[in-house]
C-alpha cells in the first residue's frame, strides 16, 4: 500500500517492508519494545492508559476498549480469557487479514500487552476457517515468539505466563458476534447468548472473558510506546486514533488504507482510493461493511470518516469495509445479494431473524426475476420492522439496515422492477 502524506501510520507502518512477518525483522523495526515497557508498568495503570487513549473497538460496534477491560472482575478465583476476534466475515472487510498476513507479530505483541493488563494467561485467536493460510502465517509467528521466550511460562523473562493458540472457525459469519464466538470456541453451534450476563463476567467456560478485534489489539503497542496522549491527539475529539478502511467495489485502487478518524469521506474515495473506476459517476457508498445503511452520493457530501459524523449522516462506521457503487449498479440486485448473505448466515436460533432474513431474500429474488408484486416493496419494509430489535443478536438488525436504506433511498428502482 502506498503511504500517503498527512496520515499517521500506526498499524500499517511497516506493512510493506520486506519479510516483516519474521520476528527478527519485526524486532529490528522496534517490535516488542512496547511489550517490555508494558510489562514494567502496573496492570491497572496500563488499563488507564488504554482508557485515556480513547481507543474504541474496531470490530464494528465501536465500544471503548478501556471501559470493556475495566468491566472484568479482578481477583476472582476464575481465570480470565482474552479472545482475539479474527473471524473477519463482514462483506467488504479485509483489514485484519492484511495485518495477520503481513505483520503477525504486531497482533501477538498487542495481545501480550492486553493479556498482561487483564492478568490473563490463556488466549485464543479465533480466525475464520477460510483464512487458513493466514492462520498458518500467524501460527509461524507464534512459534517464533515461543522460541524467543516472548510467549510461554515467562513472558520476556518476567514472572508472567502466557499461552496463545490459533483456533480456526469453520465458516459461520455469526461467530464474529462475541457471545457466538465464545459458544463456537466452546465447541457448540455458534448460537449467540442472551445478555446479560455479559462475557466480561460469564464468557468462555463461564469465566471472565474479553473479546477484542485484531485491529484494536494491534493498536496497543503504539499506544503503549508513544503514550495515550499521542494517540488521543490523532482523530476527532470523540473518535480518536486511526482506522483501517478496506475499500472495494467500483474504485480505481481498492485495498486497505489507514486514515486518521475524521478524514473526509469523499476525499478519501477520490484521492486515496483513486476515485470511481473507469471514470464513472458515484452512485452510492456502503461505508462500514454490508450491514450498515447505504449512503447516496449526495449524502456523502461533507461527511467525515468517524463514528459520530457517519452516525449523523444516517449510517455507521462499522468495520470500515467500504463498498463503492457506481452509476451502473442495480440497487435491487445489490440488496438481493446482501439479503442472500444474511439469509445464509442467520444462525436460526431465534424466530424473527431465522424466518425474516430468508423471507426477505426470497421476495427480493422474486422482484429481480420480475415476478414481484407492487406490494412487495412495502412488504420488505414491513418485514424490516418486524425483525428490528426483536432478536438475541444484532444480525437481524444488520439485515434490516441495508433493506430499509436501499428500499427507501432507491424505491423507484424497486417499483420499476415490480411493475414489469
Amino acid at each position: 500500500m502506498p503511504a500517503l502524506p498527512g496520515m499517521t501510520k500506526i498499524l500499517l507502518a511497516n506493512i510493506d517492508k520486506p519479510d516483516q512477518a519474521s520476528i527478527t525483522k519485526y524486532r529490528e523495526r522496534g517490535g516488542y519494545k512496547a511489550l517490555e515497557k508494558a510489562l514494567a508498568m502496573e496492570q491497572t495503570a496500563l488499563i488507564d492508559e488504554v482508557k485515556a487513549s480513547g481507543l474504541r473497538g474496531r470490530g464494528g460496534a465501536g465500544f471503548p476498549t478501556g471501559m470493556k477491560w475495566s468491566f472484568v472482575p479482578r481477583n476472582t478465583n476464575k481465570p480470565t480469557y482474552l479472545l482475539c476476534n479474527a473471524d473477519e466475515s463482514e462483506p467488504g472487510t479485509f483489514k485484519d487479514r492484511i495485518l495477520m498476513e503481513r505483520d503477525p507479530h504486531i497482533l501477538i505483541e498487542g495481545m501480550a500487552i492486553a493479556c498482561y493488563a487483564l492478568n490473563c494467561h490463556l488466549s485464543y485467536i479465533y480466525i475464520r476457517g477460510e483464512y487458513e493460510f493466514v492462520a498458518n502465517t500467524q501460527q509461524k509467528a507464534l512459534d517464533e515468539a515461543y522460541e524467543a521466550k516472548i510467549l510461554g511460562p515467562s513472558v520476556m523473562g518476567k514472572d508472567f505466563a502466557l499461552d496463545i493458540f490459533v483456533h480456526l472457525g469453520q465458516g459461520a459469519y455469526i461467530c464474529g458476534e462475541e457471545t457466538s464466538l465464545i459458544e463456537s470456541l466452546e465447541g457448540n453451534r455458534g448460537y449467540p447468548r442472551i445478555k446479560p450476563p455479559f462475557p466480561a463476567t460469564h464468557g468462555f467456560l463461564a469465566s471472565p472473558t474479553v473479546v477484542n478485534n485484531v485491529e484494536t489489539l494491534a493498536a496497543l503497542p503504539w499506544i503503549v510506546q508513544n503514550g495515550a496522549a499521542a494517540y488521543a491527539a490523532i482523530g476527532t475529539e470523540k473518535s480518536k486514533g486511526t482506522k483501517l478502511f478496506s475499500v472495494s467495489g467500483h474504485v480505481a485502487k481498492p485495498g486497505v488504507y489507514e486514515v486518521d478518524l475524521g478524514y473526509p469521506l469523499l476525499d478519501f474515495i477520490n484521492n486515496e482510493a483513486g476515485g470511481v473506476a473507469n471514470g464513472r459517476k458515484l452512485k452510492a457508498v456502503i461505508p462500514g461493511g454490508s450491514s450498515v445503511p447505504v449512503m447516496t452520493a449526495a449524502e456523502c457530501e461533507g461527511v467525515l470518516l468517524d463514528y459520530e459524523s457517519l452516525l449523523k449522516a444516517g449510517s455507521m462506521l462499522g468495520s470500515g469495509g467500504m463498498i463503492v457503487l457506481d452509476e451502473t449498479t442495480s440497487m435491487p440486485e445489490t440488496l438481493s445479494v446482501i439479503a442472500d448473505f444474511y439469509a445464509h448466515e442467520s444462525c436460526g436460533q431465534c424466530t424473527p431473524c431465522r424466518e425474516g432474513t430468508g423471507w426477505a431474500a426470497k421476495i427480493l429474488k422474486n422482484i429481480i426475476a420480475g415476478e414481484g408484486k407492487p406490494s412487495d416493496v412495502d412488504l420488505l419494509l414491513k418485514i424490516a420492522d418486524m425483525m428490528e430489535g426483536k432478536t438475541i443478536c444484532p444480525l437481524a438488525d444488520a439485515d434490516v439496515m441495508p433493506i430499509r436504506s436501499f428500499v427507501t433511498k432507491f424505491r423507484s428502482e424497486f417499483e420499476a422492477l415490480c411493475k414489469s
Partner: protein
Amino acid sequence: MPKFTLNGQEIEAKAGQTIIQAAEDHGVEIPHYCYHPDLPIDGNCRMCLVDVEKMPKLTPACTTLVNEGMVVRSENERVKQAVRGVLEFLLINHPVDCPVCDQAGECRLQDYYMVYGLHTSEISLGMKVRKRKVIDLGPMVVLDQERCVLCSRCIRFFDHVTETGEMQFFGRGDHVAIGTFQDRPLDNPYSGNVVDICPVGALTSRDFRFKCRVWFLHATDSICGGCSTGCAVRIDHRDGAIFRMIPRRNPEVNRSWLCDEGRLSFHELNKTERISRPLMKGRDGVQAPVTWEEAVRSIDARLKEIRAANGAGSILGFASPSATNEGLFLFKRYVGDQLGATQFDFRVDSEDKNVLEEEDQILRHFDKHPNSIGAIKLGLMSKELGGIDGAIEAARAGQIKAGVVIYFPPLVRRPCDEEVEGRVFELIDVLEYSVVLAAHKSEWQTAASVVLPVTPWSEEEGTYTNFEGRVQFAGKAIDAGGDALAVWEAFAMLLHASGAESPWMSAEDVFATLTEHVPAYREVTLDKTRLPGVIVG
C-alpha cells in the same frame, strides 16, 4: 421480595423470579413457546417480549429477572405489534395442516393466532421452506419437522432432564430442523413427555395418533396408578373409554413429567375381560352369577359361621395395595372390627421393601402399586404373616380357614406377575372359604367361593398414599360396566348386611370417617389431597 408494576398493577414477585413467572403467578399470561417452568430458560422464540420502562428495546419476559420498581407492560400496542410480527414469522413456513394435525385444538399457534394474529398470510406458497413429515421416532413419538417452531423444548428435555441428548438441531438458518441422529427411535422411558411439552404439532403421540380429536375429550384429574410414585395425571376420556393420560404439573412429585409405562398403563384395563356380575359357588362347586344382595348375605353368614367354629383368628384379610384408602379402610372395618379378624396383609411380593426403591433418578419406583404405604398406614401388614407366602403356610397348617382377598394386578406389568398371580391362586386354593374382590376375569379366581366385581383405578374415586406418604385424590374418569361396585361400596354393603351401621353415601364420606379414626390422617381434608397433596406422618 421485589415489587414491580405489571400493566399498571403493583405485583410482588418471589426473589429471583423472571417477569414471565411472576406474571403467571398473578394470572397474567404472557405468550410464549420456548419457556417451560421445568426446563432451563432459552429465550429463542421471542414471543414473550414485553415493554419495560427505561429499556430501549422490548425485552423477553422469560429471561429478564424482576427488579424492584420495574414497570412492565405486556399488553400495550407496541408489544402486541411485536408479538403479531413474531407469530407471522412462525407461521410463514408452517404447513398450516391443522386438519390432519393431532395438536389442533390444543395448539399454541392456533391459540395465539386467535388472540394476536388474525392476519392474512402474505407469503406465497412457493416460498415456503419444506421439511420432512411423519418421521417415526420409536413407540411413543411421531415427528413432523415442518410444524416445528424450533423452541428447543424437546432438546432441552433430553439434555437436562433425562440427560441422554437424543434430539438436536440440524442445519442452519431457516432450514434448521430438529431430529435424532439418523432418525433413531427414542428408546428412552420418558420420551413421551416431549409430546406434551411440544407447544405445536411437531411431536405427536404415536399411541394417541388419530384416535380422537381433542375437543371431544373430557378430562378428569387423577393420580397415576402405575407405581408408588403417584404422579399427578389428567385422564382424557370419551364415551366411557380412556384415550390418553397426560401429566398434570405437581412440582413436589412429578414436576411436568410422566414415564411412558405410566402413560400407557391405562391400556392394561381393557386387555382382559371384566367380571360383570357377582359369582358364587353353588353346591356343585361351579361359580354361578348371583345378585349382590344374595352374595353379600351369604358371605356375611358364612364368615360368621367360620368365626363361630374356629375363632376370629381363622379369618384372613388380604388387601390389595392398588385399592384406594377408602376401600381398604372399610375392608379393615368389616374384616377387622366387625368380624374381629387379626390376620391382615397385602404383600403379594416384597412391596414393603421396594416401595421406596427408585427404578431411576427421575420418577419410577420398583413398587408397581400406587397405595402400598396407604395399606401399611391402615395397619394391613402383620408381622407374623410376612406376606402371602406366610398366609399360604398358615392356611396349609389350618390356622386360617377363610379369607377375604382383594387383588388388582399392577397396571404396569412385570415379568414376575405371572408367578405372583400363581401365589394368589395358591392362597385362594388352600383356603376353605374365600371371598375374592377383583375387576378382571382371570385364572387365579377360579377356585374362589365368591367373586365380587369391583372397579379398578380410574373407575372409582378415592385417595392413594404414595411412597413418601403423600395422600393424593384421584377422580373417577369413566363408569365401570356391569354390576361392578367400588371396593368401599362392596364393604359398606357387607357391613350393612352384618348389622353394623354404614352411613356412607360417597368415597368422600368414607374419607371423612377415615380421618376421624386413623390418627395419621387426622389433619387431612379432601381439599388438601388435591394438588400438590399432603404428606402424612
